[in-house]
């Protein structure tokens, strides 16, 4: 049987990969993908702990996380479409309207 810590290590590595993606990439879509990766890492953690504590609460929480991720994807894509219509770019470095 796989120890719980293996799942936690996988989840940690996946989270850090997502974090690097958010920090390093400049394409807005890839940044959204990286956020999905980080949410999935949290899901792995929740489900693994739910299994090893034999409680259903972690799985219910990961359902909520999946729902929020779907909503975030919809809003993020709407923002990308609006930005691309106005600025014809998805490069986050060129989107500096809110910068002062």
């Amino acid at each position, binding site marked *: 049987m796989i120890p719980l810590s293996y799942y936690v290590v996988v989840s940690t590595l996946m989270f850090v990969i997502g974090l690097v993606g958010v920090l390093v990439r400049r394409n807005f879509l890839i940044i959204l993908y990286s956020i999905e990766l980080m949410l999935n890492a949290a899901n792995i953690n929740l489900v693994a702990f739910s299994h090893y504590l034999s409680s259903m609460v972690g799985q219910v929480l990961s359902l909520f996380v999946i729902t929020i991720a779907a909503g975030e994807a919809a809003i993020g894509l709407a923002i990308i479409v609006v930005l691309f219509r106005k600025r014809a770019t*998805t490069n986050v470095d060129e989107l500096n309207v809110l910068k002062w």
Partner: protein
Amino acid sequence: MCVDVVFIALGPWNDANLWSILKNSMTHTLFFFYFAILTLISSLCTIALRNPIQCTVALLSALLHVAGLFILLHAEFIAAMQIIIYAGAVLVLYLFVLMLLDLKQAETVIHRQYGFALFFSAVLLGEILLALFQSPLFAKVPPITDAASTPSPNTESIGVVLFTDYLLPFEMVGVLLLGGIVGALVLAKQTPRSSKS
């Protein structure tokens, strides 16, 4: 191939033959390492590849392998939701918008400050792993639990918890999704001023 595994595992779940394959400790370990390594490789490809379409396909692979990990954890319902919602809905939406945007420009992939980003991410990874290795939890191998020890089916017990203890958050998530729909529509709608001009 991963999809086949997931579908086989999702379908006849009470089939004793199939379950005994997964219950075999060796096979279980093998499947865990397959899913874990493929998840990490696909995640790396998601952030490292240049073409956004390839990134999307890599993300799809990562999500499917995470669903495989969920099945190894006896969370069949979450695995099914992962495939239906993420792979079925969210990824198709991403791909649709990606086709719509028609990104022609050769973007400079890497941010200027990637050195700082990599450094601090490595520090964070080191901190988390250090804390993990030093915790008493790390070396502990939990007792073997198989399907026989779980009292009721996975979906049923999730439903019981979801609709008793977590009823209020459930309703709030529904309201949040409604807000998301309205917000996405308002954002993506062409304003009359800009459509006239």
